């Protein structure tokens, strides 16, 4: 099971702040999970399109497309940060 979190613009566009997802077969990294989410439908495809700016954190560390995703991980999707 993955604990998936969404923040800011992505939270609003995707209509959820958190969800539990059974690790999809064949998904082993951030790129794989993103592709799987993008296949969910229009809003997902649009918000997670390669041309859009978003970031992924795995277990609260900034991640890259090739970062591994394993059962039990906390994976967060959010826009580039704008604090300070």
């Amino acid at each position: 099971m993955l604990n998936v979190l969404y923040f800011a613009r992505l939270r609003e566009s995707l209509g959820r702040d958190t969800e539990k997802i059974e690790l999809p077969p064949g998904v082993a990294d951030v790129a794989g999970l993103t592709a799987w989410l993008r296949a969910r439908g229009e809003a997902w495809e649009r918000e997670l399109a390669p041309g859009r700016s978003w970031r992924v954190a795995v277990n609260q560390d900034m991640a890259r497309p090739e970062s591994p995703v394993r059962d039990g991980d906390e994976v967060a999707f959010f826009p580039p940060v704008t604090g300070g």
Partner: protein
Amino acid sequence: MNDIARGELRNDGATVIRVQAEDFDVGVEIARLRAGNPRIGAVASFVGVCRDLNDGAAVAEMTLEHYPGMTEKALDGIAREARGRWDVIDIVIVHRVGPMRPTDQIVLVIATSAHRGEAFAACEFLMDYLKTRAPFWKKERTPAGDRWVDARATDDAAAERWS
């Protein structure tokens, strides 16, 4: 700089990180740091303030969202990185979340050191890294409606100066 003094200064202060809805008082924070260590000679600080105008639009109010857990982890990592680069004594990072209005304080960063060059550098580094690595997001209320603030390319450029 005296070598003995340098050795004594290392790891002598503390890192304080707070994420809170409440406002903060720079004077109180600095007074606490000064009182705690007579070897502090320099206190560099930065306060980020909510403006009434951003990218040409009037801002009536702003809300800061963050990622609890990762925020503290990211800020702690940024503080460790600063300590690895400069001989700082104390680091204080206070970041507010929730609703804020123009002239309200948003963020406070303080770096103390024996000498001013290291305090200034560490303070500016902390702000630049915080701006690009700490999971906070601003949503502004303008006459045209609510809008999420976009990340600035200048912030990425500022952070990359240090790498």
